[in-house]
Every structure is written in structure tokens, then in C-alpha cells.
């Protein structure tokens, strides 16, 4: 069975989205994408330098990949909206990841401003992917205002601390109909697999790959882990039990 992920008007075979920040060179981005089998790449518009061919990250995005510019650097809804419009005007398509951060110590997203930006941009026809702190009411509101997915954090950006918000993400997966894409915090392929097993629609990884000793090999590992986690989810894992199920039941005599 072919597992196709339909989102934002696109059909994807890979559920691993990758970021492009923190690499020692842009030249490695195509290799990382290929090794991971990833088809969606997010790029900070603040770093897109259209006038400078050699350093322009957009020149390193492989053909056929979906470009998802993000609004990194935005401190409020107004700035995020302007960045999204600039990205569209620059030919980056109509997918946009909304990042509104007004906390430079932990880089936690501002959910309230994110909802405001999402509402405006979704109404303008953008496919909006908001990065949020996992909160059910916020996710429901985003669903209502037209987000294409919600992207809750597993742990603070760049922390590689894993799925610290697992229980809250689980609630989002259970309660909302939008795809849930775990973004930020995933540090190891096993954590990506765990998110996928839980029923996340996809995961977005950057720091864990970009700061690995061998980013290309790590990208491959993440690609495999996401596929494995998804397969496990589709396979329907057996129920877990708190206690061992005895092979000689105590009540067998009642049959």
C-alpha cells in the first residue's frame, strides 16, 4: 500500500520535513535532502539573499521539493504577515511556516500572535503551517481560521531534547482533524520514529541533522526512522498491558 501524504495541495511520499539553518555550507543541503528522501524544505526568509547568487539558499533547494519559507525573526503577527507576503512576492510559493517569537531566551512561540497571522494569511490563500506551543484550544482555533496543519514543538528549538511535550502532542493528534507536524526539539531518529508511531502526520528536523558530525548520514537515519515510525503507526501496534498476561489464566476453568 502506498502511503501518500496529501497536504497543502501537494502529494508527498516522505513525511520528513527538513530545515536549512545552521549548516556549515548551503552546498550540503541537496545531499541532505536526497539522503533523507525529504520533499519539503523550510527556509528562513530573513536569510534569503536573492541578489547574491552564490550565497542564496534558494539556489540549493532541489528541483521538485516543496519550499516552505518561514517567518523566523518575526516578533508579532504584523511582522510575520509582512514576511510571508515578501516571500510570496519573491517567488517562494504559497506555503508558509509561521514563526512568531518574542522570547529570545527559549525561542518559544507566541501562540496568540500566531493565530492572528494565520487568520490573515489563510484568508489570502496561503497554505499556513503555524509553529506553536502545544495547546489544544490554540490548535482548535488555528483549525477554525484555516491553517493547513499545526506544528507543535517537542522541546524548545535547537535543544535536541526530544519529545518533552509528548502528552500534549498526543491530545492534539487525538482531538483535531488537521495534520499534526512535530516541529522543534527532536534530536534523535528514535524520537522522530516515536512521534510518527503516535500518529503525527510528519516531523520537521533541523538542528539534529545540521549539527551532527555527519549531516548526510544523520539525514538518512531520520528518513528511515520517520518511515519506520509511520509504518508502525499504520500497522496498528498491539495493545500495551500494565501486567503480564498469564498463559495459564486463573479463570480458564469457567469456560
Amino acid at each position, binding site marked *: 500500500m502506498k502511503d501518500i501524504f496529501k497536504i497543502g495541495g501537494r502529494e508527498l511520499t516522505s513525511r520528513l520535513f527538513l530545515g536549512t539553518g*545552521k*549548516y556549515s555550507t548551503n552546498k550540503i543541503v541537496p545531499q541532505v535532502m536526497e539522503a533523507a528522501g525529504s520533499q519539503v524544505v523550510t527556509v528562513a526568509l*530573513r536569510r534569503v*539573499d536573492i*541578489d547574491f547568487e552564490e*550565497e542564496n539558499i534558494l539556489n540549493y533547494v532541489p528541483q521538485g521539493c516543496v519550499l516552505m519559507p518561514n517567518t523566523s*525573526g518575526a516578533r508579532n503577527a504584523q511582522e510575520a504577515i509582512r*514576511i510571508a507576503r515578501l516571500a510570496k512576492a519573491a517567488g517562494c510559493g504559497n506555503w508558509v511556516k509561521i514563526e512568531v517569537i518574542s522570547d529570545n531566551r527559549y525561542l518559544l512561540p507566541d501562540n496568540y500572535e500566531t493565530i492572528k497571522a494565520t487568520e490573515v494569511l489563510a484568508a489570502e490563500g496561503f497554505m499556513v503551517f503555524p509553529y506553536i506551543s502545544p495547546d489544544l484550544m490554540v490548535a482548535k482555533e488555528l483549525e477554525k481560521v484555516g491553517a493547513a496543519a499545526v506544528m507543535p514543538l517537542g522541546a524548545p528549538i535547537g535543544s535536541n531534547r526530544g519529545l518533552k511535550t509528548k502528552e500534549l502532542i498526543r491530545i492534539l493528534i487525538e482531538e483535531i482533524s488537521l495534520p499534526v507536524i512535530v516541529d522543534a526539539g527532536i534530536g534523535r531518529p528514535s524520537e522522530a520514529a516515536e512521534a510518527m508511531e503516535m500518529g503525527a502526520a510528519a516531523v520537521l528536523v533541523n*538542528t539534529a541533522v*545540521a549539527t551532527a558530525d555527519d549531516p548526510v548520514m544523520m539525514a538518512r537515519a531520520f528518513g528511515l526512522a520517520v518511515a519506520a515510525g509511520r509504518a508502525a503507526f499504520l500497522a496498528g501496534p498491539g495493545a500495551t498491558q500494565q501486567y503480564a498476561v498469564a498463559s495459564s489464566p486463573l479463570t480458564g476453568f469457567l469456560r
Partner: protein
Amino acid sequence: MSFYDIYQSYREFDFAGFFAGLTDQDITRIIYKNRLSELDYLALLSPAAESHLEEMAQRAHRLTVQHFGKVIFLYTPLYLANYCVNRCVYCGFAAHNQIPRRKLTLAEVEEEAKLIAATGLKHLLILTGESRQHSPVSYMKDCLEVLKKYFSSISIEVYPLTEEEYAELIAAGVDGMTMYQEVYNPEVYAELHPAGPKRNYLFRLDAPERACRAGMRTIGLGALLGLNDWRTEAFFTGLHANYLQSRYTDVEVSISPPRMRPHVGGFPPRVTVSDKNLVQYILAYRLFMPRGGITVSTRESEELRNRLVKLGVTRMSAASCTAVGGRSHAEGGTNQFDIADERDVPAMVQMLYQQGYQPVFKDWQLL
């Protein structure tokens, strides 16, 4: 409440006694803490921490790569004017120095902007001497109209302004400001600034906070190393950064550890700050403020800057020129100070790539 209250709370603090009481065990414990207190930071600036620099460097490097990646932001300064009304004893632009004074015409600003833009750099720091009369805010705004065509981010390093003036410049396209306090110790500050509006210690000290309130995106701070005991000056610079970051969470705060350089006037540094001292300061700050920016300018030598890339630094100036109009008219301009690393942009780019780092030319877009 202002940072001055924080400063005052340490006025009676026994720094020497604190340093004397530190053990190697204290330092090791602090290096691996998740979040450092103010006194933990001071401990890492102590003589006792000098024997732990390698351990600090390893942790600083890991934290920097984790939070910023293997990238260094590049920017360059543009001196618009060198008129100055202050008599700071250590500065080449001081009013009493007999140097040719000038300020760029808008045509000259454009000429310089084109030369810089051709290198690919998108972040510009504009500077003036401290003279409201010769470099009023209106002049800066006129220059910004020209510069905005060429650069995606423009910061200022000018005399302290009022909150309203900062807001005016932000509206005109400025997104960052740098303000060197020079010296945090008020008595030493008074000695070194014998005349001129710069004597107003508090107005300068509170300038970064006024800029934060006005909505500035990025703030840079620093003490000029060589004017006073470096350990306490580094401590107060870090505390100032921490104060602002805690209150203005949406502002990106960075520090810079400039050391005195040769300049017209020849005031010798009062205190020698060695390479080892500078490195200790950078490492201690990185551990105290894991997400704080650290800028190292071309005041430092090529060799040292190459080595600092992996020790916590996040921003570097490149192809600097500290003379007004010095790029388009190399002859005749007086430098504010002599630069030590004279590499051009391609040479900096090559060095960074060789070290496994990506040079970032653009990190913000004027909105």
C-alpha cells in the same frame, strides 16, 4: 528601575574576596550547570577559572553550534562623520585632536554604499562622531534613505538618543543599535570623559534600554577593554545584557569585547588585556548567555579572529574602514583607530569555509 540599580547593588561587593574564595571544584561545577547565576558568571571571569579555559571552550563551542549553528554573521561599519564635541582621552575622533573633520554628502554615502554592496554584505553599521550639531538625527535619516536601497539591515552606533529619536530612526529603517558604555565604573568614567555631553554617564547607560523601549530589534553592548579592570567591566557588560534580555525578551542582545587599539592621541591602555583574558571573557559570557550574540571586530588580529570563530563568537565585521569616506577616497581620512585584520570579504569568506563555517551576509530583511 534601570540597569544602574543593578550596578549599584554591586557597589560594595568584595570582588577580590569573592575571587579569592573560589576553588577549582566551584569552577567545574559552574561550567556544567544548565543556567548560570550572576555570581556563577563572575566566577568564570575569575583568576581561578583561568586554569579551566579548555573545558569552558569545549562547552562554549557546543552551546554556540547548538543555538546558532556553524555560521558567522558578517557586517561592516560605515563612518558617516567624524565631528565630535567630546574630549574622551582615549579616542582618535575626540574634539581636541587636530584631525581633518568631515561628514559625507549624500552622494558620497551612495558611493560608499555601492562599494560595500558590491561585496555582497547586507548588514551595515553606520557610525558618526558624537556631535548633534554636525550629525543630527535628520542627517542620519537622509543617509538611511540612500542606504536602504543597498542593505537589508542597518544598525547605528551614534551618540545616545532619546526614546523618541530611536523610534524615529526605527521608522526610517534602523533595526539595530550598538552603544559602548566604555567604562561601567562611574568614577573612572568621569576621569576619562573630562568634557562634553558624553560626561553624562547615566544618559549613556540607559540608552540601550531607551532603544529597547522604542522597539529596536537588536542591541549591542560593550565596555572598551583597557580602560579599567577587565574582569569587573566584563561582569557588568554581561549583567547589562542579561538585564535587557530579561525585560525586553523580543530584542536580540549581543555584546562585544573591544580592546583598545592605537589611535591619534596615543592614550595608552591603563590595563593590559591579553588574548587569554579576552578568550576567558568570551567563554564566560557564552556560558552565562547561551543565546546571546558575541561580536568581534577587526580591532583583533587575523590570527586571533580565526581562532575565535569556534569559541562562541557569532558576528564579525569584515573589510572594515574607520575613516570617513575611506573606501572611496583612501587618501587623507583619519582612522578612529587602526584596524588589525585588514582582510577583504572574499578572504573572510574563504577563512570561514576553511574552518567549516558558513558566512551569513543577510540575516534580516527591512520590513
